[in-house]
């Protein structure tokens, strides 16, 4: 009996101490799943440099990041797009750039598509690769799920409404798009350029198409010539101060360029 | 009708011929001066949809063995279970009439059921030792009734096991599982488990019917040896057994789809000079 009492007491103690234990300062980031892995790495390095600080990153989506920053649920929101007009009351800070490129299966002989052809394919006017100079075969249109900023950017660039798109596969995150296209020689999709470059470099059977004659490459995103690129932003409600400012400044500094590149994004020019 | 001698069931010679292990008698010679221990008055018992027993009245005498005989399904087990209120466990079971133990109604609302059951032990048809060690089987009920002194515990365990003649067989393996014992040993352990609480009354529901003849004989001898120390009510289908061990006998029979007590009396009278035709037919083996 005594032993059991002791055990219960010690467990309770442990629970209480662990519940009340907290780091001195905590930063909460929520939002874009595209930025989340990068933010985790940025946070880790920041924690190392600033003992006693904790950076918690929760994955979600850009709209979520914006609304959490506004409501105060998060200290910093993450949005993988520029702020919309109705969001201009918030402050945004770009920490990296990313391009969005159209990908096909590697075995697809089609080398390039005009903007109009992409629009026709996505709206279901063209349904066979033969019509755009490829082999006879049905086109599988891979689209993103509603709410994702990649989708918003894509439709915005091609001046499409999501309800106009006739997709055969709707995907969630980036890698699902790459895996879907890699597994289907008739598929067309659009994904983050950095990761697509990495994947095709590692033998995944996909290829990036040029856009308006500009090759879809990290290099062209960096030099600004690629037309469909987006900023990866941190968003705050107020002008950053204290720890928030310290963190944002850190994420925009030269010191983290290696982390940005490790996640296949384009670091800010310095 | 034969005249029945008053002391016929327990002549002093018969008493002394028993090899008791239980020490001196605590009560006066049983049955010689019958004193009711349990009085059942107009007991009826019904389950949700059917009446199992109706209008049963009898006195059960202190220190005697009372055997209940009769065909299956005529309410003997229900009767037995109503004495220690084990019928409470059966949903929808209703009881009318009175059961007085030492003149106190056990079915009164304010009865402490657990205390009652401590006074009235019960042995079941199928030996049901708990899935614990032999020692724990006996100690656990004692502890639950507030006895924690180690010396008292081990003393009473030993006494109970000695009383049922099991001590020598198991004293070296008290901590081995009770379910590893043979059927007869298990049943004796169950009797010991009832005795260890020092009850006044023992209810036995066909205690030998699940045992082989040899074990059955051992248990029967044990039951016989309890006479005089405990008030025993035993349900049995074995008429010869009832005749061998009981002082009193009651005969149950189905009438109008419900069990009733047809006849109750001294054992010898029931078997040798039954008053009722049905009893006569049953004990002679003609019916049932």
């Amino acid at each position, binding site marked *: 009996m005594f032993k059991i009492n002791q055990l219960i007491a010690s467990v309770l103690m442990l629970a209480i101490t662990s519940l009340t234990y907290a780091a001195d300062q905590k930063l909460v980031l929520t939002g874009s799943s595209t930025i989340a892995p990068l933010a985790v790495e940025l946070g880790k390095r920041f924690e190392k440099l600033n003992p006693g600080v904790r950076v918690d990153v929760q994955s979600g989506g850009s709209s*979520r990041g914006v609304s959490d920053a506004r409501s105060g649920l998060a200290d910093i929101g993450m949005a993988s797009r520029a702020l919309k007009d109705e969001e201009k009351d918030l402050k945004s800070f770009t920490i990296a750039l990313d391009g969005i490129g159209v990908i096909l299966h590697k075995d697809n002989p089609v080398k390039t598509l005009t903007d109009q052809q992409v629009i026709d394919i996505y709206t279901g006017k063209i349904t066979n690769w033969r019509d755009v100079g490829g082999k006879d075969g049905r086109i599988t249109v891979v689209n993103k799920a509603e709410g994702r900023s990649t989708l918003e950017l894509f439709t915005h660039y091609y001046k499409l409404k999501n309800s106009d798109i006739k997709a055969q596969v709707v995907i969630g995150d980036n890698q699902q798009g790459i895996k879907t296209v890699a597994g289907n020689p008739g598929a067309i999709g659009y994904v983050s350029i950095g990761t697509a470059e990495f994947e095709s470099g590692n033998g995944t059977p996909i290829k990036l198409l040029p856009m308006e004659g500009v090759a879809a490459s990290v290099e062209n995103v960096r030099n600004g010539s690629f037309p469909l690129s987006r900023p990866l932003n941190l968003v705050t409600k107020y002008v950053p101060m204290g720890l928030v400012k310290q963190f944002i400044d850190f994420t925009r500094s030269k010191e983290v360029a290696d982390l940005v590149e490790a996640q296949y994004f384009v670091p800010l020019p310095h | 009708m034969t005249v029945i001698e008053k002391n016929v069931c327990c002549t002093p010679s018969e008493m002394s011929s028993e090899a008791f292990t239980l020490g001196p008698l605590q009560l006066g010679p049983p049955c010689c001066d019958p004193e009711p221990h349990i009085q059942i008055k107009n007991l009826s018992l019904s389950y949700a949809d059917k009446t199992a027993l109706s209008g049963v009245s009898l006195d059960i005498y202190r220190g005697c063995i009372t055997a209940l005989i009769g065909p299956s399904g005529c309410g003997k087990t229900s009767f037995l279970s109503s004495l220690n209120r084990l019928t409470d466990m059966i949903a929808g079971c209703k009881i009318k009439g009175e059961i007085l133990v030492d003149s106190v109604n056990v079915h009164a609302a304010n009865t402490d059921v657990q205390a009652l059951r401590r006074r009235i032990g019960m042995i079941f048809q199928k030996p049901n030792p708990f899935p614990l060690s032999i020692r724990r089987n006996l100690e656990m009920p004692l502890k639950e009734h507030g006895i924690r002194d180690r010396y008292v515990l081990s003393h009473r365990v030993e006494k109970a096991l000695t009383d049922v003649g099991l001590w020598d067989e198991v004293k070296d393996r008290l901590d081995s599982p009770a379910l590893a014992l043979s059927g007869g040993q298990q049943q004796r352990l169950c009797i010991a488990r009832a005795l260890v609480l020092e009850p006044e009354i023992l209810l036995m529901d066909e205690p030998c019917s699940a045992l082989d003849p040899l074990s059955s004989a051992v248990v029967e001898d044990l039951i016989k040896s309890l006479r005089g120390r405990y008030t025993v009510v035993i349900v049995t289908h074995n008429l010869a057994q009832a005749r061998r061990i009981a002082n009193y006998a009651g005969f149950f029979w189905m009438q109008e789809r419900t069990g009733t007590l047809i006849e109750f009396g001294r054992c010898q009278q029931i078997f040798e000079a039954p008053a009722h035709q049905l009893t006569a037919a049953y004990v002679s083996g003609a019916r049932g």
Partner: protein
Amino acid sequence: MSRSRTDQPLISVLAISAVIAAAILLLILLFLLRESWPVLNKVGILRFFTDDGWYPLEARFGLAPMLWATLAVGIGAVLVATPLGLAATLFTRFYAPRWLALPFQRMVALLAGIPSVVFGLWGLTVLVPFIAAFEPPGASLLAGILILTIMILPTIALTADAALAAVPEHYLRGSAALGFSRATTILGVLLPAAKAGITGGILLAAARALGETMAVLMVAGNVVQTPTSLFDPIRTLTANIALEMAYATGDHRASLFVSGLMLMGLVLVLAMSASRLGGGRLHG
């Protein structure tokens, strides 16, 4: 019931626990309603069935195609998994050579423990391209059904095994004594005797199939449409929530909670029919 005084506190504690356990369901319904109320109040429940298309950002809230898709993929998986699951059980019990029976059963049990994400990953990289080679896009109702089949098959097999184990030995002996063949013994005696348990297992598996999220999301294509062929990509109600929840705000988010309510409705219907079907219970 025997309610001696010493038992009263115990019974109170137990009753409170049971009430808490039962109240969880109520809490879930309550909070789903609370979160979906803004949009239910604004556009009404009916439009979730009548709107064409699911474009919540454009205020079009048609969930009906996803309801049909959920049902199609669930029913399809149950139809395929039931014979296979039963066969797997019968195999371990009666057909497998002795050395194989136990490993096979362990394998089925292990299959039950593999997380749905792993099934999904495998489906996305192996199964979908395989189907796409015959009939693009590959991500389809069929892929969903097949993945769900592998996932719920162990549930059916394990519950059927328990049900068969409970069939009294003398049924088998009786059948053997009559000189019945193995097939007759199984089809004529064993399966009917274990029917209640097997039905329970199938209903449980059906609930799993309807509720499965991640694996279906990864293989079924997620296009909002009423399926007309096995090769059509579909989106289930669960995938809809998982796909968009993290991104949704405002009415969009509220309408995802409506998807949740609709799923609860399906489960309620399933549980009702379970208790109708001869007291079979939905869980385990």
